[in-house]
């Protein structure tokens, strides 16, 4: 029963990802016309073809254009009107208005005869059947032309310091809160819990205003500090809970031996807390990596684009192009997915042990 539930949940999560992945490798026409589950099947496409009038030659009182339509697969049928674009079978001759005649072969070779030729030759239509095609062009376009490179660099430049900074500060704070006796400690912890309940939205504009006064508004240092501030309460809480579980005797013995507090922190607390630290680091990193809101406020107007902001711009400029959106989404998912797969053990071990207390 439990296995079934797990399998169902996995399927529920994997299905949309599979859809995104498949769509990201399709071309625009295919993505717009059929569902991704039909991607592996061969498909029939109707395309319009404009013969080049410059290649026309005069022959027996009429103009003849011969040529081969671009290779889009095996031609099944053709037509002269958009209303019936597949009215004629290949090999037959279609006769249209004013003495127009057209023959198309299965390989796309055509012969068009018209009595008069203007600077625009009459168009015709081809119904072709082609095996499913997949392309990496969407990714190539995103990476080369659409600024994916700078965006992913900006995301790292934002997320790494904004993860490390609160983590170290929180480790110091948690160490003091757990192992150093001082008056008002309980009050501090209560205050910490209160801060965790505070929504961050009301703090945004005043914080940004203060940063502008200090000259670090709309810059990396500014947003690092903002993320540090917003992340600290939870980080301290998680690490504090984690440290409380460690045997107190080790710290007491070290103190009796005259080891300084700094060495106790560096040599005992930090190594023992590593699972908790790593767990929280993953957590904080993923949240910063995926954050759009704080990034648009604290880096808005700057010329720096982190991935979620970049992704939103792609949605803006490629709104109807599902294959581009899917490829962009896959690209932005890569790093969180890699981090999670590489560290999921640490995450599973570290976080609950601290957070559950």
């Amino acid at each position: 029963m439990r296995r079934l539930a797990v399998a169902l949940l996995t399927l529920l999560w994997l299905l949309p990802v599979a859809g995104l992945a498949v769509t990201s490798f399709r071309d625009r026409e295919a993505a717009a016309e059929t569902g991704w589950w039909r991607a592996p099947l061969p498909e029939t496409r109707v395309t319009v073809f404009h013969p080049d009038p410059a290649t026309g030659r005069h022959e027996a009182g009429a103009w003849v254009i011969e040529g081969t339509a671009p290779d889009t697969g095996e031609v099944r049928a053709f037509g002269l009107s958009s209303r019936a674009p597949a009215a004629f079978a290949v090999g037959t001759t279609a006769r249209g208005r004013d003495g127009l005649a057209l023959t198309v072969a299965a390989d796309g070779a055509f012969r068009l005869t018209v009595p008069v030729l203007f600077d625009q030759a009459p168009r015709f239509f081809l119904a072709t059947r082609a095996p499913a095609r997949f392309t990496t062009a969407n990714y190539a376009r995103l990476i080369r032309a659409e600024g994916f490179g700078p965006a992913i660099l900006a995301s790292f430049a934002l997320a790494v310091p904004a993860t490390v900074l609160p983590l170290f500060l929180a480790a110091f704070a948690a160490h003091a809160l757990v192992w150093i006796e001082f008056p008002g400690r309980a009050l501090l912890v209560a205050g910490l819990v209160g801060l965790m309940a505070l929504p961050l939205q009301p703090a945004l504009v005043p914080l940004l205003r203060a940063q502008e006064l200090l000259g670090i508004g709309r810059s990396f240092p500014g947003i690092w500090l903002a993320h540090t501030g917003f992340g600290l309460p939870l980080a301290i809480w998680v690490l504090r809970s984690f440290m409380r579980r460690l045997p107190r005797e080790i710290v007491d013995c070290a103190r009796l031996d005259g080891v300084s507090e700094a060495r106790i922190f560096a040599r005992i607390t930090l190594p023992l807390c590593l699972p908790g630290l790593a767990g929280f680091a993953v957590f904080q990193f993923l949240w910063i990596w995926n954050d759009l809101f704080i990034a648009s406020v604290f880096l808005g107007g700057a010329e720096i684009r982190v991935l979620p902001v970049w992704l939103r711009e792609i949605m803006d400029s490629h709104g109807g192009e599902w294959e581009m959106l899917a490829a962009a989404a896959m690209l932005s998912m890569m790093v969180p997915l890699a981090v999670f797969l590489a560290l999921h053990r640490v995450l599973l071990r570290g976080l609950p042990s601290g957070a559950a207390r």
Partner: protein
Amino acid sequence: MSIFRKAVLGAPLCLALLSGLAAAHDLVFPPGEDARFHWAAYEAFAATHDLRGQHLSVDGPWGGIDKQMFESVIAYFEAATGAEVAYAGGDGFEQRLLVGVEAGAPPDVAIIPQPGLAAELARRGHLAPLGAAIGAVMRDDYAAGQSWLDIATFAGPDGAPALYGLFYRVDLKSLVWYVPGNFTDAGYAVPRTFEELQALSDRIVDEGGTPWCIGLGSGPATGWPATDWVEEMMLRLHPPQDYDRWTRGALPFDDPKVIAAIEGFGTIARSAEQVVGGPEGVAATDFRDSPRGLFTLPPRCYMHRQASFIPSFFPAGLKPGRDFDAFYFPAFSAFSGRGQPVLGSGTLATITRDSPAARGFLDFLATPIAHEIWMAQSGFLTPHRGVNHDLYGDPVQERLSEILLGATTFRFDGSDLMPGAIGAGAFWTGMIDYVGGASAKVVAARIRQVWDTLE
């Protein structure tokens, strides 16, 4: 510890890489070479504006390809003055601007698409009034100049009206997009009057086709394409004065005239035969996807009413004029005395932080060259009559420009003039309810209620 060490080492590396990415922009058209451009005006501007060493930050709604285009225009300003310009631009502009204004750190120049938003900023003292020279350019050189001037004139913090924005780039709305070849195949002619348009729609239905493609989906802004439809109907069914009273709030939203306009839209959008997918399709289709039906084979629909920007969402590789074209969304011949009403919108360049560089940038946007550089590259319409219209890159742009400059009555997109809670809120959602089956009367009364609570 190793993850942390790597992470700490990685950060400066990333920063170093980032700083090397700012690329310099070249001038797309070398100054002085192509005689179709107004280079003399450009040289004159350069001679009178020396802004060397100054920095200017500009923000606006244009992202993607439009951003590249605008940056190619900015490059000429930088070359002429020596100033350095950073254009942020793109989706989320309104939030960025409002947060920036609140935090006391707005950009120097903001390019605002909604006159309503600009009026609000002007009232609160966040915009600097523009000089008489800019006003003269708009009044004398713009087609229907006085109406543009009126739209950009707001009451300041002291209540005195002043000019706060320069219209730079205009979108034309009263357009119907179609595929000329499909019209030829079926033997249809471009309708010249609204009556002919109705007859054509009915004929398409009789012949087993579907005349219209409509999509209202647009993420959080879902519903806005319907507001354009209602505005077009208002301008065609009633005199322009009624339209003005309506957008100001003097004509209540549930007035029979407005209800008639909503129902005019409904005869198309709520009909199972007139529009692809019926009302459900209208409500569920994204506006960017909706024109696709014009280009399928056989065509799913024959006409698509949308503003001049929509070709950027057409399938790739189409040739303007051959594979798609547009005609004026016609007026009723029964009211021919009212001329040809044209609906449009535009972006206002405003000064959000006053400086000689910001003033210089607006002076630059008022020169013909700032318009010509963009229009020679891609979709860009301007009411500026001083620019060389031979520079339009394709026949469709030229046709749009003719419609814009030939307008006898030009009116600005009403939903951008109404208060935000209506024009970017109740009007949108009301239209979705209406397409979903609610009666025009009920919907209009509900929007009026919201408007009444604003006073």
